[in-house]
């Protein structure tokens, strides 16, 4: 491919010299040049991914977020593990629940899910030996847990809001 000159030649120039210069060959680097270059080039992330990464980095950089995020993560992990244990130890129940779900549709599935949760809760309480506790003690523990979750949720939302305000003020300063 001959590279086309961008500028017309001024008339006062030596036409013979021009002819020589214009006919000069354009050289090419060896095959695979683009690949060799791109191996050493860091391609930026698309904007939507860059935004998510920036957000995640700024959140992880804020230490106090862990005060609230940690209980949530622990809670989520405990729930997940309990569910897996329950499913593994009650296959018959899960099969029955699935059959009901398939047979009777969403309403039945909902009922099955709530029974499963109830079963899970009963199992957990049995595992923790809470069965022997009085109703008042269980209610107090449950209330404390609810309060703790509410505090965590409030703290998390505040932290996120403060972070957004901080970022906005930084953008405004720029």
């Amino acid at each position, binding site marked *: 491919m001959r590279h086309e000159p961008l500028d017309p030649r001024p008339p006062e120039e030596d036409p*013979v010299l021009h002819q020589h210069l214009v006919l000069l060959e354009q050289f090419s680097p060896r095959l695979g040049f683009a690949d060799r270059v791109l191996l050493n080039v860091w391609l930026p992330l698309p904007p939507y991914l860059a935004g998510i990464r920036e957000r995640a980095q700024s959140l992880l950089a804020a230490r106090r977020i862990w005060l609230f995020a940690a209980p949530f993560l622990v809670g989520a992990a405990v729930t997940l593990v309990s569910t897996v244990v329950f499913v593994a130890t009650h296959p018959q129940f899960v099969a029955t629940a699935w059959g009901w779900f398939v047979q009777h549709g969403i309403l039945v599935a909902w009922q099955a899910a709530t029974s499963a949760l109830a079963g899970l809760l009963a199992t957990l309480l049995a595992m923790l030996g809470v069965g022997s506790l009085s109703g008042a003690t269980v209610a107090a523990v449950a209330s404390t847990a609810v309060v703790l979750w509410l505090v965590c949720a409030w703290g998390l939302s505040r932290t996120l809001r403060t972070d957004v305000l901080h970022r906005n003020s930084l953008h405004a300063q720029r």
Partner: protein
Amino acid sequence: MQPNPDLSGATDRAVVQWARNGSEAAYRELIRRYQRPVFSLIYRMVRDRELAEDLTQETFIKVLNAIDRYKPQFKFSSWIFKIANNAAIDQLRRKELQTLSLEGRPDATTHDRIQATSLQLGDTSESPLEEVEARELGSAIERAIGRLRPEYRACIILRHVEGRPYDEIARILDLPLGTVKTYIHRARAELQEILAPLKE
């Protein structure tokens, strides 16, 4: 994510914008557009294919890794040619320091080596290596361009081979417009003088 537009018909500015958004196809398009002009400029400046290849690669890596810092009010071509020319000039300066040291190259330890690498006053002929390179480059005009001072060489290549306007050449080389015109005028005169015997 939006699909890439027809990159081959897009302006440099648009392609750069796509590259900034992380499109590998846009990076490849920029390389496709400029690999030949940039390589040709550097090759004619340093007159060594391997070295030109390394410097061209270095230029593209530098430009593409700094694509976020590119200012769209300037031409992309000016930016990449400027970096390419600087790379070539730096290389020529380094080579000059190595080959024109009065005491020979710093790594020369034996008497023969010191003599071989020390400055040869009054010797303006081409070395065997340069002759081979000149032959590879081909025609008499290439040899004539190779004899020009690097500043003249860059001006004449950008003007006549790449067809860049004077003001862009001035931006690329960081020189006043008047200086660029003078260099091109002198370079043409030198080329005509060198090529005169061939015309007869």
